[in-house]
C-alpha cells in the first residue's frame, strides 16, 4: 500500500454477530484532502470510523491509517494520538466550564496549539465561563470541534460535524475546516448527511451503501464524468444495445430515452446518433443525484 494515503482500507468487513455492518469497504484518502463520507442511516459509516480508530476490530480485510495497521494494539494508540476525533454525540464533561474543558483537554496534548485555541474561541464565540451542560447543541459541536482542531492532529475524523447547526454556524464551521486544511498539514475525513456541504468543501468522496463502497474518487472527476443524456425520438424510443463503458442506468419512457453515464457522454452519443434522435440533451449530474441513484437501487 502506498503511504501517500492517510487512510486506506482493503475489502474491510465488520460483523456484529450475524449482522454484517461493513462488507467490503475500499477507502483511499490521500494526504491533504477533505474526504466526505456519505451513506444512509445504517449504511456502516460509524462502524467504519470505529474501525479506523481501532475502537472496533475488523472481521476481515485491512485497515491502515498513517500506514499503520489499525487492528494492532500499539498502532491504534499511535493512530489515536495523531488523530482528532469528534463523535456524533460530542463527548464532553458537562460539569466543567468551557474554559476548564479546554484547559483540561490541552493538558493531554504536548502539541496543543494555543494560537488556534485563541482564534477558534473568538470565531466560534464560545462563552468561557458557561458550564458545558448549559451549552446549546450548536455550541457543544463548536467546542468539540475546537478541541479536535487545536490538538495538533494530522488527521481529523468527524462524525457528522455539522448536525444540529443553524445555516450560519454551519458555514462558520465549514470555513474553519477549509482554513485549517489550507494552513496546516492536515487531512479531514468526515461523515455527513448534508450532500451540499460535501459538495462545497470536499475534494474526495466515498459513498457507502449497505456496508459496501458504491462510489469513490475525486469529486471533480465525478463531476466531469457523470452525465445524464436525454434522447428524444420521432416515435417510440428504441431499446438500444449500447456497448459504451460507464452506462449506469437506462430509462425508456415513450419517445424519450434517458441514460445515466459515469464515463462522459461522447462514446454513448457516437452509438446513439445512428438511431436518429430528433433531439439530444446532455446535462451534468449533481452529487445529490449520484447519491440517490446509487443508494436507492436494490441489490
Amino acid at each position, binding site marked *: 500500500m502506498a503511504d501517500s494515503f492517510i487512510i486506506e482500507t482493503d475489502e474491510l468487513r465488520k460483523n456484529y454477530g450475524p449482522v454484517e455492518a461493513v462488507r467490503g469497504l475500499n477507502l483511499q484518502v490521500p494526504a*491533504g*484532502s*477533505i474526504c466526505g463520507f456519505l451513506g444512509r442511516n445504517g449504511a456502516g459509516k460509524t462502524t467504519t470510523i470505529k474501525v479506523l480508530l481501532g475502537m472496533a476490530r475488523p472481521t476481515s480485510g485491512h485497515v491502515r491509517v498513517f500506514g499503520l495497521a489499525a487492528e494492532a494494539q500499539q498502532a491504534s494508540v499511535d493512530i489515536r494520538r495523531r488523530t482528532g476525533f469528534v463523535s456524533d454525540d460530542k463527548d464532553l464533561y458537562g460539569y466543567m466550564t468551557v474554559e476548564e474543558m479546554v484547559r483540561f483537554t490541552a493538558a493531554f496534548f504536548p502539541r496543543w496549539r494555543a494560537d488556534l485555541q485563541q482564534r477558534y474561541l473568538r470565531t466560534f464565540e464560545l462563552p468561557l465561563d458557561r458550564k458545558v451542560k448549559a451549552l446549546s447543541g450548536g455550541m457543544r459541536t463548536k467546542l468539540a470541534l475546537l478541541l479536535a482542531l487545536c490538538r495538533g492532529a494530522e488527521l481529523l475524523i468527524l462524525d457528522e460535524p455539522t448536525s444540529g447547526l443553524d445555516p450560519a454556524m454551519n*458555514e462558520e464551521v*465549514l*470555513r474553519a475546516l*477549509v*482554513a485549517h*486544511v*489550507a*494552513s496546516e498539514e492536515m487531512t479531514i475525513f468526515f461523515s455527513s448527511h448534508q*450532500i*451540499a456541504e460535501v*459538495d*462545497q*468543501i*470536499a*475534494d474526495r468522496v466515498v459513498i457507502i451503501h449497505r456496508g459496501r463502497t458504491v462510489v469513490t474518487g475525486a469529486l*471533480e472527476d465525478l*463531476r*466531469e464524468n*457523470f452525465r445524464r443524456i436525454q434522447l428524444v425520438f420521432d416515435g417510440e424510443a428504441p431499446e438500444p444495445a449500447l456497448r459504451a463503458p460507464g452506462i449506469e442506468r437506462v430509462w425508456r419512457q415513450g419517445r424519450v430515452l434517458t441514460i445515466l453515464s459515469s464515463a462522459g457522454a461522447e462514446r454513448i452519443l457516437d452509438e446513439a446518433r445512428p438511431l436518429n434522435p430528433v*433531439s*439530444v*440533451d*446532455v*446535462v*451534468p*449530474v*449533481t*452529487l*445529490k*443525484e449520484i447519491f440517490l441513484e446509487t443508494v436507492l437501487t436494490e441489490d
Partner: protein
Amino acid sequence: MLLRPNPSSGVPIYLQLMEQVKHAIETGALRPGEQLPGIRPLAEELVINPNTVAKAYRELEHEGVIELRHGAGAFVSGNARAQKLTDKFRAGQTIVAAAVERLRARRVTEEEIRRLFEAELAGLSKRGANDG
C-alpha cells in the same frame, strides 16, 4: 471581480472558477498584470476546498491566462494571451448582438434564443437549417 462557483451544480468547481476568471478578463474587470486573490484566502472566502482553487490556478497558468509567481501569488498574464481574450470577447459580442437582433426581429423570444444557442453549442442541432 465576481468569483462565485456553485458547488452543487454538478459542473466541476475548478472549471467554473476558470470560466469566471476568464470572463473577468474578457470584460476587463481583471486587467493584465493585476493580482488575483491567493489560493488560501480565496478558498476561505468561497468556503471551498483549497485543492480545487489550486487546480483552477494551475490550469489557468497552463493555458497562459495567469502567471503564478513563487511567494508573490497569481497575476493576470501581461502577455498577448490575456489581451486576446478581451479582444476576442469584444468581437464576439458584436456578432452575437447582430444575431440576437435578427432573431428578435423574427419574434423569437429570449428563452427560445437561449435554447437555440445552447443546442447549437451542443453541436447537435441540424445543420443547414440556418435562417437565410
